[in-house]
């Protein structure tokens, strides 16, 4: 496994401690933070203040495509070999709404999942240190930095109330 | 991981390709035979029949000699094809019309023709092996097709037998697409109940 990104990784138990740290770091111009949390948390989101995730675009596009595909398929197929059933029109909207709807949901959902995966992978920072407690009960804040900045940042973390600070070089 | 994916994808593509080729194959039909005045059938012996395509028959009957070289009209033997849904299998008597006198040029032919005479005299009909077997839920009125497409239309489905020493399955007549593509081309009915009842 390749070497870790140099930087400081601090673990927090207290939420406000973590948010203080984040705000302080951002104040100092450290923007590419990585913040681990066992559960999504509004305070952290506010502190980080990221733009809204673009996943919704995937949902929209997928849904529309699905709907279109549904209607296109049904109309084309019933017209491809016209067969009269029950005296009903060969190709007709009402029954095909169901299929349009179902395909809309299906493709919408699948493309949403795709979106989640793609987005997380694309924006993921590589080789960031991680501690197993972050999926348990602790919040982790990692800030990449040069060796000479490390001491200062460690101090910042401690002051914010970190329970454990490690320096990955 | 990546390897697995590529293998999977590859097989998928392959199957699709095969499927489409197969589909085209069913659609492609052999062209009607070109009128060739001087067709000479190759010399073959009964022993060669094993090497030829198609089921081996009790008698090495050669369409390429009868229909090709000697230009015997298909309907001379398949007598009911233009009037009935069934093409008709020539009776042993029909064979004997000629083979009473024609004994065969080479030894192999003589041996085969001897079988015909033997069967006729002993009154035990020859059991030909079926080559084309249309599924029983599809009804194919031969006469309608012969009357619509002409006496030589046989080749459309059965291939050019004037060149085949041993008849083999040229088209899978049980592929519905094989029928439909033709009905579409000629813009004739493809109503299900025309064939299926």
């Amino acid at each position, binding site marked *: 496994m390749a070497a870790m990104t140099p930087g400081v990784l601090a673990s927090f138990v207290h939420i406000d401690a973590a948010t203080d740290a984040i705000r302080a770091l951002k104040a100092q111009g450290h923007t590419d933070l990585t913040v681990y949390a066992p559960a999504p948390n509004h305070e952290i989101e506010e502190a980080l203040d990221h733009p809204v995730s673009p996943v919704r675009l995937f949902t929209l596009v997928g849904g529309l495509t699905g709907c279109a595909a549904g209607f296109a398929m049904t109309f084309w197929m019933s017209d491809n070999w016209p067969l009269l059933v029950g005296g009903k029109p060969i190709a007709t909207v009402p029954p095909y709404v169901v299929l349009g709807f*179902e395909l809309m949901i299906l493709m919408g959902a699948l493309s949403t999942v795709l979106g989640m995966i793609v987005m997380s992978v694309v924006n993921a920072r590589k080789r960031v240190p991680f501690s197993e407690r972050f999926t348990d009960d602790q919040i982790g804040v990692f800030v990449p930095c040069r060796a000479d900045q490390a001491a200062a940042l460690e101090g910042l973390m401690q002051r914010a109330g970190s329970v454990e600070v490690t320096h990955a070089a | 991981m990546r390897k697995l994916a590529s293998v999977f994808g590859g097989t998928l593509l392959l199957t699709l390709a095969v499927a489409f080729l197969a589909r085209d194959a069913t659609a492609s039909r052999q062209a009607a035979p070109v009128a060739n005045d001087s067709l000479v059938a190759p010399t073959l012996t009964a022993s060669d029949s094993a090497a030829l395509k198609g089921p081996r028959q009790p008698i090495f009957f050669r369409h390429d000699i009868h229909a090709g070289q000697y230009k015997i009209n298909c309907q001379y033997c398949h007598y009911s094809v233009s009037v009935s849904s069934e093409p008709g299998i020539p009776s042993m008597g029909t064979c004997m019309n000629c083979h009473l006198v024609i004994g065969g040029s080479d030894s192999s032919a003589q041996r085969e023709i001897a079988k015909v005479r033997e069967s006729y005299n002993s009154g035990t009909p020859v059991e030909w092996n079926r080559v084309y077997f249309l599924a029983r839920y599809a009804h194919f009125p031969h006469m309608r097709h012969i009357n619509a497409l002409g006496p030589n239309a046989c080749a459309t489905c059965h291939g050019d037998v004037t060149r085949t020493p041993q008849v083999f399955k040229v088209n899978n007549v049980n592929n*519905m697409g094989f029928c439909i593509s033709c009905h579409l081309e000629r813009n004739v009915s493809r109503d299900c109940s025309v064939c299926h009842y």
Partner: protein
Amino acid sequence: MSHAYTPSQTHAEVTRDVVATLGAPSRGYVMMLAGAVGLFLVGLFTFVMLLKEGLGLSGYSPPIMWSVYITTFVFWVGIGHAGTLISAILFLFRSQWRTAVYRATEAMTVFAVMTAGLFPIIHIGRQWIFYWLLPYPNQRYLWPNFKSPLLWDVFAISTYLTVSTTFLVVGLVPDIAAVRDQVSGWRKKLYAACSLGWTGSDNQWRHYTRGYLYLAALATPLVLSVHSVVSWDFAMSIIPGWHGTIFAPYFVAGAIYSGIGMVFTLLIPLRKLLRVEHMIVDYHFDNLAKLTLFTGSILFYAYAMEYFVAWYSGNTFEQVTFWRRAFGPMWWAGWSMIICNAFVSQLLWFRKIRVNLTALFVISIFINIGMWFERYVIIVSSLSNDYEPWAWGQLNPTWADWGILAGSFGWFGMYFLLFARTFPIIAIQEIKETIPFPRKRGGH
């Protein structure tokens, strides 16, 4: 009761308690699993016989061309509704109490729909060509008939299965990661693989929460549509007793009702089996019971309406059908459906009963039986006496019918039990979400 309940006090406890459910299986669990597998084998044998001999083995007697199999199909589809309702709709409503139970119900949904999905194949005359219902390019140039409600069904059920499965899996990922970081050895490797490299970084959470929201948003109309489509299998026909405009809402309500019934039946024993009594508590059952009461009352209304409309329509066919439903040869089925669903559910007006697990369990059994009979009555009794009196007939099911029914329960139970042991049956991260982090300045 409104403020957030706290079964485990801290995030650490939550992780610990849930991971504990994945420990060595108890004896009771093993026995139940064995039972489930046994039932499944019964069903498998029956199906093989059906393939070999033909559908005639089961008790079909014309004019009753659909009977136990379709009944059970609709039953399972119905079961499959509570899950998505709780996990998706209640998620949108931000109701906290769902967190403890939704994983279990969602798993139930997926496996119930998996079960239901088998029946369209089992019940057709030539099972080996069931795929002709799918629109795939073929050398015959033939396509399926999209006007047929059965085809809507194919699409609705498969969509629902796919979406609810993805919904379940997506919800699982962070929890699997949590488990991954608690266990060791080969199990760690397994969960690591399943966790898709989840770390809980801000970036992951950011897209995750959004995506989950939209999945919920899509699943919500879906869950309502699926049983509507199933109901149209009947409502689109002209059979008196099927041809009803209220069928869609009527079926959806029934589906949720039966689904929650099944949730009770599963959770009440399960929480003991997995020793999580302190995480799934009165609070949840109370709320579930209220939902049951609500949908149960809708059913009550729907039943009443069916009979009223039949009378009010002045249509002799309708009237005879419903008269015979209540007083005909199948009166017993008709009444057991009304009593088990419409009346029994009314007991839940009393809080004492809502929080009494024994009572709830008993009621839930009634609900399951009642809802199975509802479908049985709608399908069989309506078919047994429709337009043409000369063709009227009665059904007497055979071992082949019961064999498949039993098999379906086995098939369902098998997967559900295996799931409950392998993956966190209680949503770790969602519970954690409800527990505030400690603060350095003062408490909460």
